[in-house]
């Protein structure tokens, strides 16, 4: 029997999934690694730890679950979080911790660039909003603040490029991840001269660009031996988590959108044309030679609800986050839409789309004496989803979205799915896959083995369950409350700035 492996290098953990040739899940395994915050704006990971964790998890998974069941591994396909940066020296050793998407050290560089006409042109050329998350901005930060490290850097890599280099010796990056670096011209599909100039580097310091289906890398002999894989196992470059999640949701037409909500989240559409946004608020990333994935990301997804649950949930029989979460969701379901006039702004981690303000913060607005804990819980859920709706509103200006597919551990909670449907007033299907990202990796891998004739046809093989239908009364309530959410967000912009300056 043959199987296809997907490796997700995620924000907090590496996850390995195995699929049979029909797309059925054989098994999965994960290993987590920490994020370090030496100062609050920094968000770093240890690249060697990510590599060893990946190797450890993959090896155990293969030897405990895959080989004993008689499977032969046809391919391993990689995906990773966007925007990471690993700086390596002339021998390929990391000079610094990996800097993740959540890192805000480049605030100043981003602000300066964003305000110039060059910044505007650069956004249009690269598809990546000008923000500290962007590797373009991070590299500029190193040039300004860590000159020794910057000078010694031979290669500027993504975490995925680093992992593939360790395994195979080759320095590569796929077009999807490259298009999220702020350094790639998404029209010409070459490194962008103006962006390279701003970062202060040359194209030679970046890995070689390859299509997502590229399988030219070969596993080093020693890893073949330790993992028990043959020389015929293909290493497929793969894509980014966001692009794969969109593909894996089975939607490749302009009338549908996907919402992903894990710790963070995003709303995305897919199409052959990019979305031209004057404010530079939407991203346009490359999926393959024909398609772009466009949309907006949020920092404040399930992580905000987890924060609330750990601070204010009830832990009667010791600490049990799952029971506490279930209990809170039950309480939230007892309150009607609108939380009796309580509005929550979820920007505890600053916010990306649509406001792109790293200094934004959380707010409860409209508390009155009759509000109970359950109203606060309800307001937190609604706030997280109003934020998603505010991204959706921008996308609706460009596309006639008729239905939505939702994935991610937070987004697929039944109450959350229903609330999304009510807010958007559109049918919402919750993805049945444990991981839409890995489903996307499977679809790409299976297509490259000839199982599907194209990615479009591969996407059609994903069947979504019957959608959740919006409730009219709740929708009307949300429509009346949402403007308040939007006004508060705009109005408090100055106060968020003042708070940051204290």
């Amino acid at each position, binding site marked *: 029997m043959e199987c296809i492996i997907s490796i997700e290098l995620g924000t907090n953990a590496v996850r390995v999934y195995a699929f049979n040739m029909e797309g059925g899940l054989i098994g999965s395994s994960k290993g987590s690694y920490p994020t370090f915050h030496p100062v609050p704006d920094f968000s770093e990971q240890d690249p060697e*730890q990510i590599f060893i964790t990946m190797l450890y998890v993959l090896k155990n998974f293969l030897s405990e679950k895959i080989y004993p069941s008689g499977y032969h591994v046809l391919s391993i396909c990689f995906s990773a979080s966007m925007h990471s940066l690993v700086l390596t020296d002339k021998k390929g050793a990391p000079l610094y911790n990996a800097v993740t998407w959540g890192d805000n050290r480049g605030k100043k560089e981003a602000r300066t660039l964003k305000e110039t006409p060059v910044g505007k042109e650069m956004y249009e050329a690269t598809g990546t909003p000008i923000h500290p998350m962007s590797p373009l901005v991070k590299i500029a930060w190193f040039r300004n603040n860590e000159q020794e490290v910057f000078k010694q850097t031979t290669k500027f890599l993504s975490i995925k490029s680093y992992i593939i280099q360790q395994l195979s010796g080759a320095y590569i990056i796929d077009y999807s991840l490259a298009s999220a670096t702020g350094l790639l011209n998404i029209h010409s599909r070459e490194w962008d001269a103006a962006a390279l100039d701003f970062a202060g580097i040359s194209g030679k310091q970046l890995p070689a660009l390859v299509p997502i289906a590229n399988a030219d890398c070969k596993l080093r002999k020693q890893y073949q031996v330790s993992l028990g894989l043959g020389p015929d196992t293909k290493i497929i470059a793969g894509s980014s988590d966001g692009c794969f999640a969109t593909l894996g949701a089975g939607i490749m037409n302009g009338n549908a959108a996907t919402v992903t909500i894990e710790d963070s989240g995003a709303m995305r559409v897919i199409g052959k044309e990019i979305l031209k946004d004057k404010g530079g608020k939407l991203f346009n990333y490359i999926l393959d030679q024909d398609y772009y994935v466009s949309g907006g990301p949020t920092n404040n997804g399930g992580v905000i609800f987890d924060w609330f649950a750990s601070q204010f949930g009830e832990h009667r029989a010791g600490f049990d986050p799952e029971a506490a979460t279930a209990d809170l969701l039950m309480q939230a379901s007892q309150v009607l839409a609108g939380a009796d006039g309580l509005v929550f702004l979820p920007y505890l981690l600053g916010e990306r789309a649509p406001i792109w303000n790293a200094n934004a913060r959380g707010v409860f607005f409209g508390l009155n004496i009759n509000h109970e804990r359950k109203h606060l819980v309800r307001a937190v859920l609604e706030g997280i989803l109003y934020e998603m709706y505010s991204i959706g509103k921008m996308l609706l200006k460009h596309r006639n979205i008729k239905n939505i597919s939702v994935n991610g551990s937070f987004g697929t909670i039944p109450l959350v799915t229903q609330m999304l449907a009510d807010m958007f007033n559109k049918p919402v299907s919750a993805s049945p896959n444990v991981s839409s990202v890995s489903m996307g990796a499977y679809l790409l891998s299976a297509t490259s083995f000839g199982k599907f004739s194209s990615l479009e046809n591969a996407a059609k093989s994903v069947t979504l369950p019957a959608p959740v239908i919006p409730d009219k009364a709740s929708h009307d309530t949300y429509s009346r409350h949402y403007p308040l959410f939007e006004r508060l967000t705009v109005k408090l912009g100055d106060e968020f700035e003042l708070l940051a300056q204290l």
Partner: protein
Amino acid sequence: MNQFLLVRGRSHELLQFPHIVEIGLKKNASIQFGSLPVSVSQCIRLYFIIDGRFEWEVAGRPCTAYPSDLLYVLPGQTFGGANGYLDIGSLAWIFIEDANGDARRWKPGNWSSLSEIEKQTIGNILMMNPFGHLCRVADTGRIFTQLHTELVTQEIGYRARVNQLTDELLITATRQVTRQNVAGRDFPKIFLQLEQKLRQNLSHQWTVEEMAASVGMGTTLFNERVKNFSGFSPLNYLINIRITEAIRLLKKPGINVTDIALDTGFYSSQHFSTTFKKLTGYTPSQFRKKNSEDI
């Protein structure tokens, strides 16, 4: 509680307890200049505040203690009144000395009925948390009262009771240390703290009991939580960090492989080599060679 003072060598009550250097309770009604100068402590000291407000200097840091606070001073640390005198108020104390040789590796001696692993764990946790100011440990007052009663009445079984109460005092302090350190209910944060502790003391031979205790959890719950959260058992997670650090060191020239093995907590270079090769397919030396060429 009444005032008392028992001192080793002078008080017959302590004859059976050579590890207790001093135990006492004092109601200090007036300030006497120079009554408590800063000096280096030779043994572990525990002070419990009954009444008043005490300003101290512990290991060079100022420390203000209030009623129900428990303070410990480790062997080798400096301790004294912030102004060189003892403040007005009531407090109880015990000084415990155990001849283990190395003062930095203090642990309870043979008098204790804790298991050997628990003794080491308690010693390690206290040593790793050198600023021993514990807030609101009210139950400690009861332990001191009972200790005093047992020592002066010498009823049947008093020797065992005194040793049990001394154990109880150390257990109370250690549990409070870990509780105070642990970031509430947020397991990811707890886990990050543990990760940082492991990385700081990678050459130490950590046991699961010790890791669990250092974050204030029992071993069963700890095992389950770590496995759920990280995907690894605690010991495998530790091996993961050891190899991670070893890889970083192997990529730097100059440190020999045996030193890397010991620095990262492997028993021997043989143990290191076997574990490393099993995971990566390379011996440490081969891995180093592969990464020594310019690209």
